């Protein structure tokens, strides 16, 4: 399973970023292989439409779960249509911690 976590930097120890579409990085964690792939978000400074475009990035990377802080309406529509489940990472400070909390079933589903 591929889980995407929005982050301020690269790697598993990066701090999480509460914004979805304008998060600096998307970290794709492969829970079966135990690997992390960091993808720089090219849309940070884009004028608009970042929600659906970020959802497209998740679809392209095969993510089925997203851990983030908050979502806009268009992003929610796109993620829902794509069948990607979204959870709020709550108090987790790092990417690794958020993933750990998710696997423990401690995160609340927001979409």
């Amino acid at each position, binding site marked *: 399973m591929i889980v995407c976590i929005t982050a301020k930097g690269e790697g598993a120890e990066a701090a999480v970023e509460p914004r979805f579409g304008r998060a600096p990085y998307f970290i794709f964690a492969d829970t079966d292989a135990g690997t992390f792939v960091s993808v720089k978000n090219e849309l940070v400074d*884009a004028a*608009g*439409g*970042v*929600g*659906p*475009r970020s*959802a*497209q990035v998740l*679809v*392209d990377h095969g993510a089925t779960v997203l851990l983030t802080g908050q979502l806009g309406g*268009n992003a929610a*529509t*796109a993620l829902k*249509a*794509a*069948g990607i489940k979204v959870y709020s990472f709550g108090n987790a400070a790092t990417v690794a911690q958020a993933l750990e909390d998710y696997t423990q079933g401690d995160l609340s589903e927001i979409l």
Partner: protein
Amino acid sequence: MKIVVASGKGGTGKTTVSANLAYALARRGGVTLVDCDVEEPNLHLFFPGESEEKGVPVPVPAIDPERCTLCGECGHFCRYGALTVLKDRVLFFAELCHSCGGCLLVCPSGAVTEVGREVGVVNTSHPLPGLTLVSGVMHEGEVLAPKVVAAAKEAAGEEGRIVYDASPGVACPVIETLEGSDFCILVTESTPFGLHDLDLAVRAAAALGVPAGVVINRSDGEDETALTFCSEHDLPVLMTIPFDRGVAAVQNRGGLIARDLPGWEERFAELWVEVARRCEVRA
């Protein structure tokens, strides 16, 4: 002759100048007044009347699921996020689409066709003898204001005297309004904010090759900074509207000073004559 009434910022009196100028011209051979402030049109409040409505459609993509291979080209091309390519279908966000037609061009399987979508309307009315009012009205939540501006300008035609009331600021809808016009009246007030925004508007008009002049509104009689700015930028001051009780009282009840106060109809007619004279000098 086509002239634009613009201002750098909102609330400077742009609509006051357009409405009064149109009133004076309606009584002198006729005028077409075009409300190009499509996000917040308000000229119809000064000139109520029965209007005829016409939709403004823009082309948006329709995707044929039979032909679409979900290759993702359209979604990656669209910089506005209007198309998201999922595993089993393409999601279209109509209100994000800028009608550029790029998705149609990049689709390798010919799955994209264009259909019309209404983003606003143009209302045309004849509220006074000699006055045709054309108002562009953008639907709520839409982004394509320039398309509605262009449709309103088209509905107004090219004949006779035309006054375009632009939206505040110098963004795309104002550029669309200025395009192809003969002259631009810039309304300002003698405040630091007013002058800063006037500076931007002057540059926009100059970039499009539209000659401009200034109307100072709400003047307290101490307009040195505005006058200095105008002389430095070679801008004629065409008219000054004082900040006094009589003018304010008429404005506050939504009236027209050209109709309700003696002398003002003539002053607005003279403003037009002055603008016409300057357009001929240029030609």
